[in-house]
């Protein structure tokens, strides 16, 4: 009877569920990136402890509490470890919550993993797509309902992505998540996502949006104050789309942008914004730091250390955000500061100071140690007098007495740091050697990632392999020498990966150094200035913009020639380009003329005469287009100047026939007499080198002047 009542009360909790398919979720237990190297060489990212619990347990706990009933965990790299963790955890034995693991060794991207799922044919309805490093406490009820309603109206609503608001500042993005600002265009009425750009080029200070977006939407709102939570509600078609497009690898770069660009299938993506609940994904060390602190500050409640949501912990929350276990071997003189989590069985020596840090289980910390803002995982030994600031120290590391870790250091599993050794900022140390960088190509990195991880079964084995493989390429990685990590130290120092030092501070757990922060702020301000037309930086950017614009116009024009598009339509297109690049009509005239000359140049010609003929043929044909932009003297002058420039630079073939073409233009009433005379006047004071073409056209100009004088006289 008790059971029945409970069943009834559960049913009443989600009344809108009309006994249909169970809600399913796909959890990707691999991030398919190398951001967490060298740690992820030995342990998959989803099993790394986040405030003393594996990341995947946060994701699973959320999925379970959000009412998901069936989860498929796709294990790629280190699949054995993930599976054995899940087997030993409670997740397989939860009521109303089934966890199924799917192993896939040859998946090197999220796309591959989803294709594997599709082949298994296990997904029957809408599903939640999430990666195993996401922390959230949002409720799925509303977003699912919205998604379902949209699906009823429009079967093309393929996906709903969850976003949250943050302050629109590049500094915040940089500081909190280590990522760039995300730009989105959203239809405010339907919440349809129209544009998504997560790595916009800030130097350029502009983003490009297809004007078609504006064509059929009454309004469109652009956001730079949203964060992507990487929680997606997907329709089953998403899987088949991945299968159809075998080149889709990355969920955002390929799939999402692909769908947004592709208007043939007409699939639509919608957004759902969360307000009071928390959701974030751990992408790099910096977001690891930020999210850890958010959890300690209880934003992810109830996913906090003192609530037993996945394991038996006796952690209690004390004043000022200290999470301490009941059986803590803490010396009386040790000082534990605010926002600190200390795990089971950890011993802390005399006069040790710990603040803003997370200490795992079974660590032994000696006397006079100072730990600040760091993440110490399980079973770490820290001897007396060590100083650790803003570092990540993995399981089993031994720090001999007096060692110092400067901000940003990452020590991978079982590294030994020698006595009195001072590890410089952003140092990465691992017992495994750094794999040789063959290619920075994304795809290769994926391959490298998974195979490397799959092979390494035990530490010694791995060391053999890497020693053997890398022996002939020693110059890349430094050898394990005593001098590297002090006396008795063990581990290879990793050279900082591709991006160099720049990436080091961006993604590390350490606070951003003041000077770097100043740079970021400066850059942000510059960006801001750049948008003002009066500023200095604008003039620097102009030529680049010009050439972009010209290329665009040229491409448009060539297409028009190829496809024989009507002049009016070409005018429309060029106008839209003019608006998006913020140009004058004079620039358009110049650019159109430029494209014509280019076209003429490309046509086969033997002599200068033929060239002139070819050009005139083009010009006569597209006279309407050119004339459209030549409503003013200034624009005509611009065309002459442009032509002049081109004769000097890109189209030298025209320089001998400059005067002839000028005459032809005059003859076809494309350029009026006044324009040519004004041009001549303007050039009168210029250097000799600038006057080459004026001199060349001297006769013609002379003739024009005389003709006009005659006219005057006649009057």
């Amino acid at each position, binding site marked *: 009877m008790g059971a029945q009542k409970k069943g009834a009360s559960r049913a009443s909790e989600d009344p809108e569920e009309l006994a249909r398919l169970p809600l399913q979720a796909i959890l990707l237990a691999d991030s398919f990136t190398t951001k967490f190297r060298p740690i992820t060489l030995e342990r998959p990212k989803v099993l790394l402890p986040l405030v003393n619990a594996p990341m995947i347990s946060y994701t699973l706990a959320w999925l379970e509490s959000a009412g998901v009933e069936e989860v498929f965990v796709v294990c790629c790299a280190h699949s054995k470890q993930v599976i054995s963790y899940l087997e030993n955890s409670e997740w397989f034995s939860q009521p109303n919550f089934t966890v199924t693991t799917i192993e896939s060794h040859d998946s090197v991207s999220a796309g591959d993993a989803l294709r594997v799922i599709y082949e298994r044919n296990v997904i029957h309805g809408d599903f939640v797509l999430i990666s195993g490093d996401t922390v959230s406490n949002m409720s799925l009820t509303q977003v699912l309902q919205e998604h379902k309603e949209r699906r009823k109206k429009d079967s093309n609503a393929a996906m709903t992505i969850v976003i949250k608001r*943050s302050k629109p500042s590049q500094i915040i993005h940089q500081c909190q998540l280590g990522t760039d600002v995300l730009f989105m265009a959203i239809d405010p009425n339907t919440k349809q996502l129209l544009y998504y750009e997560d790595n916009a080029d800030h130097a350029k200070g502009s983003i490009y949006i297809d004007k078609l977006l504006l064509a059929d939407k009454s309004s469109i709102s652009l956001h730079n104050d949203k964060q992507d939570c990487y929680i997606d509600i997907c329709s089953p078609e998403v899987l088949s789309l991945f299968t159809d497009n075998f080149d889709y690898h990355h969920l955002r770069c390929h799939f999402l942008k692909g769908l947004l660009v592709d208007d043939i299938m007409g699939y639509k993506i919608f957004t759902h914004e969360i307000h009071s609940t928390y959701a974030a994904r751990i992408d790099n060390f910096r977001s690891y730091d*930020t999210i850890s602190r958010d959890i300690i500050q209880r934003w992810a409640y109830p996913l906090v250390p003192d609530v037993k949501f996945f394991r038996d912990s006796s952690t209690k929350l004390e004043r000022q955000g200290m999470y301490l276990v009941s059986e803590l071997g803490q010396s009386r003189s040790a000082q534990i500061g605010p926002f600190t989590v200390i795990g089971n069985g950890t011993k802390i020596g005399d006069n040790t100071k710990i603040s803003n840090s997370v200490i795992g289980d079974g660590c032994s910390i000696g006397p006079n140690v100072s730990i600040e803002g760091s993440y110490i995982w399980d079973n770490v030994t820290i001897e007396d007098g060590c100083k650790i600031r803003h570092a990540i120290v993995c399981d089993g590391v031994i720090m001999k007495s007096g060692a110092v870790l400067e901000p940003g250091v990452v020590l991978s599993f079982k590294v030994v740091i020698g006595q009195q050794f001072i590890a410089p900022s952003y140092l990465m140390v691992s017992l495994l050697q750094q794999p040789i960088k063959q290619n920075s190509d994304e795809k290769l990195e994926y391959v490298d990632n998974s195979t490397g991880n799959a092979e390494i079964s035990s530490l010694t084995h791995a060391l053999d392999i890497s020693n053997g493989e890398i022996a002939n390429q020693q110059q890349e990685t430094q050898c394990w020498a005593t001098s590297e990590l002090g006396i008795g130290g063990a581990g290879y120092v990793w050279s900082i990966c591709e991006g160099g030092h720049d990436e080091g501070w961006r993604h590390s757990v350490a606070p951003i150094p003041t000077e770097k922060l100043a740079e970021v702020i400066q850059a942000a301000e510059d960006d801001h200035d750049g948008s003002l037309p009066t500023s200095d930086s604008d003039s620097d950017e102009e030529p680049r913009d010009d050439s972009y614009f010209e290329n665009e116009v040229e491409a448009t024009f060539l297409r028009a020639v190829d496809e024989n598009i009507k002049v009016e339509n070409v005018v429309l297109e060029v106008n839209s380009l003019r608006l998006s690049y913020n140009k004058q009509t004079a620039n358009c005239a110049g650019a159109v003329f430029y494209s014509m000359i280019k076209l003429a140049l490309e046509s086969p010609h033997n002599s200068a005469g033929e060239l002139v003929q070819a050009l005139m043929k083009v010009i006569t044909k597209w006279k309407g287009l050119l004339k459209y932009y030549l409503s003013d003297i200034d624009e005509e002058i611009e065309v002459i100047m442009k032509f002049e420039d081109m004769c000097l630079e890109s189209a030298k073939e025209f320089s001998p026939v400059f005067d002839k073409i000028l005459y032809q233009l005059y003859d076809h009433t494309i350029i009026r007499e006044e324009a040519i005379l004004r041009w001549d006047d303007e050039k009168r004071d210029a250097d000799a080198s600038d006057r080459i073409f004026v001199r060349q056209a001297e006769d013609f100009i002379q003739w024009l002047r005389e003709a006009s004088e005659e006219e005057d006289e006649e009057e």
Partner: protein
Amino acid sequence: MAEVQALVNELATKLRKRKVEGSRETARLTAELLRTVISQQRVTSAALVEVVRDVGQQLIAANPVELAVGNIVRRVLRIIRDGDLSPEVGGLTLVSQGDDGDIVEEDDKPFLLSDAISQTILHPPSLVAQLESKPNLVCHFEGKAADKTPSSWQFKHQIIEGVNDLIEDINTCHELIADQSLELIHQNEVILTLGHSRTVKKFLYAAKEKKRSFQVYVAEGAPKHLGHVLANELTEKHLQTTVIPDSSVFAMISRVNMVIVGVHAVMANGGVIAPVGMNMVALAAKRHAVPFVVVGGTHKLCPLFPNNPEVLLNDMRCPSELLSFGDFSDCMDFSVGSGAALLHVVNPAFDYVPPELVSLFVTEIGGYHPSYIYRLISDYYSADDIVLQQKPAS
């Protein structure tokens, strides 16, 4: 057995995820689960105590803040212990088994103990006596379990009956408390309450239904603002209601005749654990000599003291109830300066109100002064069960 464990896990999961709302609902679910556990067990009372205690520990660990779980577990344990005695004594008188002086010692108590099962008023001296008598009873019962006598069946039946009574009590406590409303609420009075409590709501409804006319001030109960819900429900019953912010309670208290509030738990010293903001209301009431009345069923009665370090009194909830994460994302900047956040948001769920600020407790068995709570506690709980967690040590 496995299915029982599954049920236990299910409730534990619900508690862990804070999916059970309110102490009454928690108490009811716990009692029902324990009834199932007991009915599935084929063991003697001593073992039954262990089993129930074990289940109780799992449930308490799942949500240590919800004290009602522990209260119900202790109540059920008491029923088992009492049931333990009464059939035994019945056997003594009827069959006159060959037990010697040890049992005779308790000859004076049987009727009192069986009274306890039928859920009535106090019976003062039983605690100490039971403590002394326990070991010898256990050994006696183990001997008895070997032969499956009808009395063992009867014994279990009696326990189930006791638990059923307990569940019935929990279910009807609101009505029983509400019945006393006329004695407390008088014509044209102004009542102040804070937040939303079902007990208070029923209490006020009952007074209204009996044609008392009175006004209610509802303090909104930030940050959850459940006071808004209560105000909404009260106006549906045509009660004159005024909603005020928590911060203006002191300003309004001089116009108020009585404060009636619901609480989360009542501690052994007569202090209460109540929704946050309650201490301020109680202090204001004390300052203006306004009676501060706490209504709540006896399942909220907790035999622990608030200064006990084992008791987790407060629940630090999510800061997003106070402010939006997005708006304050720039204050949460850890990566500049020393790496410590400058903003810390504290959102406790409960307040502790000391007993001297409480004027009266209204329970389903009548009204009591805080200083009388210890007597109720000794009625409802056995001294052996007060510390449930002690078991692993022994």
